[in-house]
Each structure stands twice: as structure tokens, then as C-alpha cells.
């Protein structure tokens, strides 16, 4: 196993310890604590007020647009990271290429702004 993968093995072990620790603690407490469920106890906590309807509700389309905007700029960021590692080697050419890329994606933000979908009403 290479050094690279050995360093990720640490991440794996950390993850495993975290899972074991949490399940051990929660399992132990569920074994020790008394369990007396009542209908009042099992309703959803909604800031002290009785909840109306179910938790499964249809969401607004506005959230979808925000999620899509997030995808667009997430992908943009992902392309900027490798470019940044070789920034000096590419020089002006790289700057122009990335400029075009960012400009095209910026147009989508301008479009969203002009259409008023960024406004939170």
C-alpha cells in the first residue's frame, strides 16, 4: 500500500472509530434509560407549538433555482482549483480561457438577477 493510500487509511480508521463511538454511546443510553412513550412525547417538536400537517410537504420552486445556481457555481469552483495550481505556467492564455469560462457563467447569474429569481419575497 502506497503512502498516499496509507494516509487515507487514517481517514478510514477515524471514520470507523466515529461510527463505533456514536453507536456505542447511543446504544448504551438506549439500554440504560427507561422507555415510557406516550402520544404527546412522540409528536414532532415545533418550538413548543403543536405541528400542523406532516413533515412531508411540497417545497417551493424557488429552492430548486437556488440549488441549480449552487450547482453551477460549485462546478465553476471545481474548475478553478486545478487552474490555480498551474496559474503561472499558463500565463495570459490561461487567464483569458478562465475569463471566458467565468464570464459565460456570470451571464447565467445576470440572467437570474434580471428575471428577479434572486429576490426573496
Amino acid at each position, binding site marked *: *500500500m*502506497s503512502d*498516499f*493510500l496509507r494516509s*487515507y487509511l487514517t481517514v478510514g480508521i477515524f471514520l470507523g472509530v466515529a461510527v463505533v463511538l456514536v453507536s456505542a454511546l447511543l446504544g448504551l443510553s438506549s439500554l440504560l434509560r427507561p422507555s415510557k412513550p406516550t402520544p404527546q412525547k412522540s409528536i414532532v417538536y415545533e418550538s413548543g407549538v403543536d405541528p400542523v400537517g*406532516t*413533515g*412531508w*410537504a*411540497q*417545497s*417551493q*420552486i*424557488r*429552492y*430548486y*433555482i437556488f*440549488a*441549480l*445556481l*449552487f*450547482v*453551477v457555481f*460549485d*462546478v*465553476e*469552483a*471545481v*474548475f478553478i*482549483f*486545478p*487552474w490555480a*495550481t*498551474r496559474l503561472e505556467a*499558463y500565463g495570459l492564455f*490561461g487567464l483569458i*480561457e478562465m475569463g*471566458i*469560462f467565468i464570464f*459565460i*457563467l456570470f*451571464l*447565467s447569474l445576470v*440572467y*437570474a438577477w434580471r*428575471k428577479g*429569481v434572486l429576490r426573496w419575497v
Partner: protein
Amino acid sequence: MVAQNIFFGIIAFVMVVAALRVVTTKNIVHAALYLVIVLAGVAAQFILTGAEFVGVTQILVYIGAVVVLFLFGIMLTRARIGREVEVDNEKRWLAGLVALVLFAVMSFALVDAFEDSRIESVSGGTPQLTSEVSDAIFKDYLIPFEAASFLLLAALIGAIVVARRE
């Protein structure tokens, strides 16, 4: 190499089980959450082959953004989310056929491109550097890179046109 194969097997098994749950679960929100396990498995496989940047990108873009988009997409629909409903329909055999053809085409492309070459001989046994990814983007794949931005622009404009109340 043996340890790598063992981890590959474990991750692949978890991925296959989660992928089967994606299509068999009755709750479509749960299906999206099982998809997170599959995509995390893909990221783990990338890291196992030394493609660190691609693995991190997989987590950042797919788990961080695309699944969120899926969840909002599911929650938008009038489909009865959350309740145990019959989500199958009569077209499932046709869908199965399409999936089978897709599997055949993709596995043929993989086998055709790499034949029996091993990962160490392709990558040289060292993890791929992010600067190598960058060189590939800015030398061989410059046009697809710029085309990707157009694709994202078109997707966003399309979504805004569909979503906006006229």
C-alpha cells in the same frame, strides 16, 4: 495491492447494495439518500485508484450539489413523497432493457479502451496531481471545458424559464 483489492471489494459491495436499494425502495426521498451512498462509494474508488482531485470533486459536486438538486426536485413534484407508495409502473421492463444496453455499451467502452492494463501501469503507481488534471483540461480538453460553461448556462436559463411564474 492486496489491501487495495480488499477495499475495492468492500466498497463495491456496499455500492451495489445501495444502488439496488435506490431502485427498490418505496420512498423516493430515501432513494435519493441511498444515491448518496453510491456516489460516496464512487469517490472512495477514485481515491483508491489515486485520483484524489476527481474523488474530492465527486464529493463536492455530486453529493454536495447534485443530490441537493435531486432532493429539491423530488420535493417539488406532486408525487406523494415520504409515504410508502407503489412507485413502479408498467414500463419497468423497458427501463430495464435500456439500463442493460447502457451497461453493455459502457462496459464495452471501458474494456475496449483499457483492455487488461493495470492501474499502476497507467498512473505509474503514484497519485494523480491536481496540476496534471489542469494540464489535461487546458491542453486536450479545452473545448469541452468551455462547452461545459455553455451547458450550465443553458441549464440554468432553461430552469428559470420553466420555474418562473409568467
